[in-house]
């Protein structure tokens, strides 16, 4: 009898353990595809099917990465790139957030400002680059302004939309409870539009990073983009790859940072996470 009970207990537990064993954790799943690609790549490059200047092997790229790290060259470029992106982002997103708040709040300022914004928004980033170079030359100012221009719109649009989509029913509650204008802002409008604003920040950061690459490839004497252009001239393809990978990693890191911020600030939201 006793043994039976134990067996039942075991067989009850078993499937759960089995399930856990079989299912890899979520973060691990993301590595499967890159791992396969890299393995195939190494195989192709290692067998010498293609020349190293076209497709350097992953091993060669890693070596180049290590030597660039040890010499400190990479950090110098990365620092200046991040600084540029950050300055441009803070400028553009700061103005975007402020203007989005103003236009979101007042119907009158919407009439004056929003139509212009909607026209400017449709202009592709690349189209204004020559103009910025013409006006501000190749130096830092033109790069930062280009990045600012790109990061302005996502946050402007999302802040504006966020404020406008606050539930009118909750405004009735605020009226019934006699909220002051300030409390309406801090307890109702701001929290209600926070998810939109954070989305705007995420998109703006992405746009800033993208236009940083454009700005640095156009012409510069430092930065990760410059490193790539420089390596291209000397056919150091593995160094080009290192530059691309760095752009990817930093972009992903900033995105993850905002995502973490989102999770923290929006923990009240019980949203659907997707089926396993």
């Amino acid at each position, binding site marked *: 009898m006793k043994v039976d009970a134990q067996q039942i207990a075991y067989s009850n537990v078993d499937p759960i353990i089995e399930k856990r064993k079989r299912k890899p954790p979520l973060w691990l799943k993301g590595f499967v595809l890159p791992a396969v690609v890299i393995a195939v790549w190494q195989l192709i490059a290692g067998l010498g099917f293609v020349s190293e200047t076209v497709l350097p092997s992953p091993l060669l790229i890693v070596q180049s990465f290590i030597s660039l790290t040890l010499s400190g060259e990479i950090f110098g470029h990365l620092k200046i790139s991040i600084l540029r992106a950050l300055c441009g982002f803070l400028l553009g997103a700061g103005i975007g957030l402020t203007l989005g708040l103003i236009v979101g709040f007042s119907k009158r300022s919407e009439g004056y400002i929003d139509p212009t914004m909607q026209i400017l928004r449709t202009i592709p980033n690349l189209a204004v680059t020559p103009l910025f170079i013409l006006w501000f030359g190749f130096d830092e100012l033109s790069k930062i302004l280009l990045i600012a221009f790109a990061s302005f719109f996502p946050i402007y649009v999302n802040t504006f939309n966020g404020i406008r989509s606050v539930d009118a*029913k*909750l405004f*009735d*509650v605020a*009226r*019934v*409870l*006699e*909220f*002051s204008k300030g*409390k309406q802002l801090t*307890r*109702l409008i701001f*929290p*209600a539009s*926070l998810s939109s604003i954070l989305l705007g920040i995420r998109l703006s950061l992405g746009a800033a990073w993208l236009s940083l690459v454009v700005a640095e490839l156009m012409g510069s004497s430092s930065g990760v983009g410059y490193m790539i252009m420089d390596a291209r001239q000397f056919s150091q393809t593995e160094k080009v790859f290192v530059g691309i990978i760095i752009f990817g990693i930093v972009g992903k890191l900033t995105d993850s940072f905002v995502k973490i911020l989102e999770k923290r600030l*929006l*923990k*009240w*939201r*019980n949203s659907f996470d997707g089926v396993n």
Partner: protein
Amino acid sequence: MAVDIQIVEKSFHMETTKNIVLNGIDLRIEEGDFLTIIGPSGCGKSTLLKIMAGLDTEYKGVIDINGRIVEKPAIAQGFIFQEHRLFPWLTVEQNIAADLNLKDPAVRQKVDDMIEIVRLKGYEKAFPSEISGGMSQRVAIARALIRDPEVLLLDEPFGALDAFTRQHLQDVLIDIWQKKKITMVLVTHDIDESIYLGTDIAILRANPGELQKLVHVGLSYPRSRTDPSFQAIRQKVLKEFEKTDTESYKDGEGI
């Protein structure tokens, strides 16, 4: 000290026609009374309550609460909507405090007392998405009560809840009403609910919304739904409904 309702006419203007929703409603609610308003759907119950709350000011007439004319929404007229309408980003205790500062010891004390009264102990830090509909409605009631309203207006507050939760909340409400001695006005379309809760029942008829009859219940609390005296009141209310039915048929205004 009482609530005086004098609505000459309330109408909504459609593109071509004028839709008279309330017509000549004259009603006085004494301080500490519990008035339930019952009537067919679309007869203007919500509209009447919104007028009393100051949420709707486009009508002919006047609402007077304890000698003060209602002109806009205020915490003196607490309002409970059919849906709880909590702020999803605030926890239970933050929702009750709403615009008040929880760090203020006086507010803290009041919130804690109120959580006790609406029986939500242990859920102070939960978000609205984590609690049931009945609990959310209790939070909404607590949010209104903590502001010490002179009158609490409730628009079908338990309509969306299951029968068990509804009965429980009815008892909670009576408990609060007896403890706090606030004037209550509750709209419902449930006859039993109107008799179980009200000191008086206002029966409205539709098209246009008029006061059909004011019934004084006169039973002591807590009431029993199966008690013969309860059933007698029920018969009385049902008779009034029958009358409105035949009348509207006579007028040719029936469905």
